[in-house]
């Protein structure tokens, strides 16, 4: 553009100045745009009213700390595991225990319900993930039919079935995740990349069902392609171990809870963190997070025995729930979003449900 050479009143310096001031002007305009849009966004989202959430069921029966739980697709059954090696399947609605297995190890940190509702998987300090078909036959010992599926070189921290009973995804203290075929116990794919223990994972609810996210002690959350085993995205903004990750219902984002007492939301398409949910009065780590059905609320269980409910869009805390007498170690919303279940080191699980007292419809 400047091929004609300098004009009469222009010097190199003055041109530079001009370009600087133009740049600044551009930034200013951009900033104005920021403000307008931020303002718009914050405006569009009305604050939520008061919540009335109460514990509706208390499941007692574990003799020691409850470490993990998962819902069955029938929306009322759950499986839970504890420090003393017991894995119990409950009909949470009636609070009846339907099955109980004693694992040969303590600290069963992971458990999952199969999509069909016919089996459960669990594991922990035994470095393995085992699948137990659920049977009501009184003559059968559940432990007899157990299938040892996954083998890691350190403790199992999380496990989840994929879309069927036939495949399991596991995360381990050995820093890797792995995909296994249940029937043969064969390793189908392994995922290396974390620099420390992997503590949690969650499968993407996407149409093509090909990715999952994991969080670890290296403060990183990594998104993996299940087919190739490659890490396709990575996020490192937390200041301490990531204890829990959970996808937003649409699959476009995920939330994480960490020992740094904050929960964060990461947008996958923008490839960045977009929100931090924290408060000065919350000084204990978040152990477990999950979204409500619409994704508007984020439930997070903390090591200070409480559950904080966050407004995902506004970033504010909506409610704080007390009730547990020791740290909340696991929290999941039920498949139809009617309730959530929290498990704690106080040996109990609580199913809580409630509703917004005054509903604000989002402005369009």
């Amino acid at each position: 553009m400047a091929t004609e050479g300098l004009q009469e009143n222009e010097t190199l310096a003055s041109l530079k100045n001009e370009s600087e001031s133009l740049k600044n002007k551009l930034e200013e305009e951009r900033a104005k745009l920021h403000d307008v849009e931020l303002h718009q966004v914050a405006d569009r989202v009305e604050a939520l009213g008061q919540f009335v959430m109460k514990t509706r069921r208390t499941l007692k029966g574990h003799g020691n700390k409850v470490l993990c739980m998962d819902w069955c697709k029938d929306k009322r059954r759950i499986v839970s595991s504890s420090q003393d090696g017991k894995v119990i399947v409950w009909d949470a609605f009636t609070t009846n225990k339907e099955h109980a297995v004693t694992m040969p190890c303590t600290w069963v940190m992971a458990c999952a319900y199969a999509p069909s509702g016919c089996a459960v998987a669990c594991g922990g300090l035994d470095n393995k993930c085992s699948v137990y078909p659920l049977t009501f036959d009184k003559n059968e010992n559940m432990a007899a039919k157990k299938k040892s599926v996954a083998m890691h070189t350190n403790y199992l921290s999380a496990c989840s079935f994929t879309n069927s009973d036939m495949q399991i995804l596991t995360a381990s203290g050995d820093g890797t995740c792995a995909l296994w075929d249940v029937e043969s116990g064969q390793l189908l794919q392994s995922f290396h990349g974390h620099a420390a223990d992997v503590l949690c994972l969650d499968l993407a609810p996407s149409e093509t069902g090909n990715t999952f996210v994991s969080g670890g002690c290296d403060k990183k959350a990594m998104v993996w392609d299940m087919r190739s085993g490659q890490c396709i995205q990575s996020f490192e903004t937390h200041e301490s171990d990531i204890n829990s990750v959970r996808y937003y219902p649409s699959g476009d984002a995920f939330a994480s809870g960490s020992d740094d007492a904050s929960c964060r939301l990461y947008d996958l398409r923008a490839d960045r963190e977009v929100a931090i949910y924290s408060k000065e009065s919350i000084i204990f780590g978040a152990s477990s997070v999950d979204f409500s059905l619409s994704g508007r609320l984020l439930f997070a269980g903390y090591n200070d025995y409480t559950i904080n409910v966050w407004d995902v869009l506004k970033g504010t805390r909506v409610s704080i729930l007390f009730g547990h007498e020791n740290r909340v170690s696991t929290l999941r919303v039920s498949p139809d979003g009617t309730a959530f279940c929290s498990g704690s080191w106080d040996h109990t699980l609580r199913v809580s449900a409630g509703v917004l007292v005054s509903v604000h419809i989002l402005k369009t």
Partner: protein
Amino acid sequence: MERVILAMQDPNVGIKMRNQRLLITVIPHAMTGNDIVEWLIQRFSITEEEALHLGNLIVKYGYIYPLKDAKTLVLKADESPYRFQVMKSPTISNLITAIYLAKKNIRKQGDLIDYERDAYNLLHKRINHTWDFVVMQAREQLRASKQRRKADRIVLDCQEQAYWLVNRPPPGAFDVLERGPERGNCLNSRVQMRGPSVAYIFNNETFAFSGSFFKHCEQYQVHDPIMSGCLPSNPWITDDTMYWTMNADLVATPTKMRVERWAFSFMELIRDPLGHNEFVHFLEKEFSAENLSFWEACEDVRYGEYSKIPEKLENIYQQFLVPGASKWVNIDSKTMDRTLQGIKAPHRYVMDDAQMHIYFLMKKDSYPRYLKSDLYKNMLAKAIVPQETKKSVFPFMRRQRHSSPSPALTAHSGEDDGKSKSAGSPGGAVAATITQVEE
């Protein structure tokens, strides 16, 4: 937590310390439980309940100790006096423990509680060589304490007692320092405090994306039982399972909300067993039902048993891909060629391209047409809106909680890969049993 404690102790913004009264003794430089709660409420803008909870944890973790009822580490929001604990190094040597127990032993003239006596004897064995030193130290400390002023004595005793309660809790009691299994490479779990309170970051580039969250929340808000309640009622609240009965997998008449959800996305439609069946009916009318069958068969390969893959791929080939096959699917020639080549070396993801192609075909073509079809419109018209459960006349009478058959009971019929829908719904048999209407 350290930062909170430091703030509390700060002479400018911290808690005002005064001389507190404990019965007749004046304790210098202490604060009341009430002071602590008030300060927390002020500082963090939280409720009294939350402040009390937080304060209790601070006491349990040993940062503050009570001067009254020193045996229980509890914060009472009243005039009971409290003081800040002197933090010592986290490693407690055997020697220190031994001296403490020896003092107790002397004071109680040998009448220690069993777990203390066990610990005492164990230490006696372990560090026998320095036992004289231990006893001498213990005696010396006891003598020195007798010479102190009463106030100082009370303070030091409570301080010591609280310290040991936190660091060496009696067996069976709550152990605040328990951490769970050892984790590799992790930072000190004592929390690093963060600066700003509620931070919400939105970047310009993400605005377009944040719009999508907003849309999703808005769209699903009425379907979210926690946000908007559910009709007839939330089973967990009223003990009435009507909501589940009405929304069971294969009911004759679905609810309006459910049918509306089918219009949100293609996934919503086909993952709902009822929606799925409706869609199949529609496709049959259009003579393109083989598309959905093909897609499902592919899902089955992807998520099914590893050992059955070659067999399943062969079936798919025969049913859907061979020219002239009964359910031949219309894939573009390039994809078809690639797929056919791929089958020669069968693996789980061989069908991915073809499956994706057919999926998007259904999503972009058949699905929108379905939503405009009479079939869907009729379904929407006959869908019901449940009545809200009337409050029972006797509100204190609890409804009987009916149990339901476990999905595992019907495990024997068509289990494993073949029958279980890739959509991950529970076995079809379950739906059949749940459709009985409960009183």
